[in-house]
C-alpha cells in the first residue's frame, strides 16, 4: 500500500493534467488552477520541513561539537537573525530584514556568481587544449566564434562575423535541436513510466 497509493495519486493527477490541456472548458482551467494552488500549499509546507531539518542538522553538529561546528553556529545565528528581523520589523522596504538582504545576502550571492568568470577561464583553458583532432577542431571553431563576436573580428575581415553567426545559427542549432528532440521524447517516456508505476525508484522501490 505504501507504494500503490502514491503511484495511484501520481497517475490520477498526471492524467488529469494531461487531459486538461486538451479541454478548453472553464471546468478544466478551474481544476488546473486549483491543482496549482495545492502545489503552492505543498511547497509552503515543504519549506517549513526544510527549515526544521536545517536547524536540526546544525544543532546536532553544535551539540556534538563536530568538526566545523562553529560554521553551524554562524548558520543558525543568521537564520535566527533573519527570522527575528522579518517577524518583528516586517519585510517592507526600509526594514532591517531588507537591509540585511540587500547588504549581506545579495553581495554574498553576487560574489559567488562573480567566481564564474574565473571558472569559465580555467575550464575553457582545459577544454581548448589541442591534444587531439577533436579538441583542435573545438579550439578552431571557438576562436572563430569568439573573434567574430568582438569588434576586432570585423577589423580582421567582414566574413569572420558572418562565419561566426553561421556556426552559431546553423550547425550549433542543428545539434541542439537533435538533443532537444531526444530530451522531449525522454521526458514523455519518463512521465508515462512514472504515471503507470513502471518506474518507482523515486519512491524508494526497485520492483
Amino acid at each position, binding site marked *: 500500500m505504501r507504494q500503490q497509493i502514491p503511484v495511484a495519486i501520481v497517475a490520477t493527477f498526471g492524467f488529469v493534467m494531461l487531459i486538461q490541456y486538451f479541454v*478548453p472548458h*472553464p471546468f478544466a482551467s478551474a481544476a488546473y488552477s486549483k491543482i496549482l494552488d495545492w502545489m503552492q500549499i505543498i511547497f509552503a509546507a515543504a*519549506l517549513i520541513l526544510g527549515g526544521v531539518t536545517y536547524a536540526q542538522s546544525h544543532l546536532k553538529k553544535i551539540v556534538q561539537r563536530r568538526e566545523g561546528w562553529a560554521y553551524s553556529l554562524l548558520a543558525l545565528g543568521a537564520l535566527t537573525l533573519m527570522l527575528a528581523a522579518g517577524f518583528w520589523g516586517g519585510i517592507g522596504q526600509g526594514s532591517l530584514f531588507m537591509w540585511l538582504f540587500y547588504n549581506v545576502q545579495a553581495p554574498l550571492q553576487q560574489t559567488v556568481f562573480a567566481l564564474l568568470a574565473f571558472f569559465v577561464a580555467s575550464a575553457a583553458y582545459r577544454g581548448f587544449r589541442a591534444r587531439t583532432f577533436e579538441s583542435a577542431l573545438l579550439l578552431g571553431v571557438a576562436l572563430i566564434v569568439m573573434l567574430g563576436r568582438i569588434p576586432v573580428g570585423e577589423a580582421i575581415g567582414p566574413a569572420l562575423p558572418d562565419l561566426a553567426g553561421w556556426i552559431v545559427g546553423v550547425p550549433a542549432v542543428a545539434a541542439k535541436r537533435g*538533443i532537444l528532440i531526444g530530451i522531449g*521524447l*525522454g521526458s514523455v517516456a519518463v512521465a508515462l513510466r512514472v504515471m503507470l508505476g513502471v518506474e518507482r525508484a523515486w519512491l524508494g522501490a526497485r520492483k
Partner: protein
Amino acid sequence: MRAAGQPFSMRVWRWVSTLPLILFLWAPSHARPHVIVILPAEVSDVPWDAGTALEIRWQTELPGDFEIVILRNRQDGITDTVGRYPADVLMVVDRGLTPGREYTYDFFVYDKFGYQVSVTKGRTAVAPRKNWFDREKSSELVIVLLIFALLIWASAHKTETYVRPIPGLKAMEDAIGRAVEMGRPVLFSAGWGAQLDKPTTLAAMNIFGWIARKSAEYGADLRFPVHDALIMAAAQESAHEASLLEGKPEWYVPENIFYVTGSQFGYAAALDGIMERERPATNLWLGTFAAESLILSETGNHIGAVQIAGTDSTIQLAFFLVTCDYTLIGEEVFAASGYLTRDPRVLGSLWAQDMFKIVIALGITIGLIGSGFGWNEIGDWLRQI
C-alpha cells in the same frame, strides 16, 4: 463691418469647408458617394474554445478613411466598446466574454471628419458556448496517444532491447567503489533547477535510487545536499528503501540527505564548502542545472574528484563536458535507469523512443527534400502537426 477678431477670409473659409457636409446631408440618397450601410452582422460562437469568444462578421463598402466602432450590449443593459476598426476590417473576434451570457452588437460608422454617419443596431442575441475539446489540438492529441500506445506496447513486447554502452553509466559503479576504497564520501546533486514535477528530476531520482542501493551495498558514504525540501523527503525515502533492500538498515543516515538553501548561489557556495572540507572522491551531478553547474564542477575538478554529470540543459552541457570525466547528454539521463537496472519494461520504452526519433528524422528529411524541390506544402503540413 468685420466681426471682432475674425478676418473675412476666415469666415468665408468656414462656410466653404462645411459646404460638402451640407450637400451630403441634403442630397438624395442615390446621389451620395457611398452607401454607408452595415449589412446585418453575423455573430457566431467561436468553436472549440472555453466559451469566452464570439466571432463578428459584417459586409459593407466604405471609403478607406472611414472607421467602424463596435459596441457590445449585455442583457443587463451594460454596454462596452469592443474596438475601433478601419473600414477594410470585416471580421473581429470579441474575447474575454462570459460563457452562456447573451450579447448583441451595434455598429457606428464615422467619416474622416469624425462625424457619425450610420448606426446599425444588432438585434439577435448570441451567447458563447463552452466546449469540451479543442479541435485545434487534435494533431497533438493523436501524437500523444500514438506515443503512449507505442510506449506501452514496447514496454510489454520489446523487453530484450539492446542499449549501447554509455561510458558515464558504466563508470558509475566504479566511481562509487573508488570512494569506498579512498574512505571519502560520494556527493550527489540534482541541481538547483530540480523540482519534483520535472521529468528530469524524476529521472535523476531514479538514478539516485540505484546509486543509493550500490552505495548501501558497498558501504559508501552518500551525501545529497538539496535546495528543495520535497526532493529531500523523496530522496530520504529512496535511500531508506535502498538500505532495507540491501539488508543494511544501519547504512541509512537521514542527515546525509539534507536541506541547504533555496538560493542558487547560496546552494553553490554550500556545495563548494562541502567539497573543500570533505573532499568527496566522486561527484555525481545529475538533474537540472543552471549557472551553478560550472561553479560546482570546476571545484570538483580542483579537488580531484571523479565527476559524472548529466543534464537536459543544453547550455550547461558544454560546461560539464569540459570539467567532468563523463557527461550524459540529454536523453541519456532519461535512459539511465533502464540501462542501470536492466528493467525490461524500461528498456522496451527506450525502443519506442528510438522509433519516434526515426519517424521525426524521416519527417525532417522529407520536409527538407520537399523544400529543395519547392514543395513547401509538405513543410507547412509538418509544421501544422
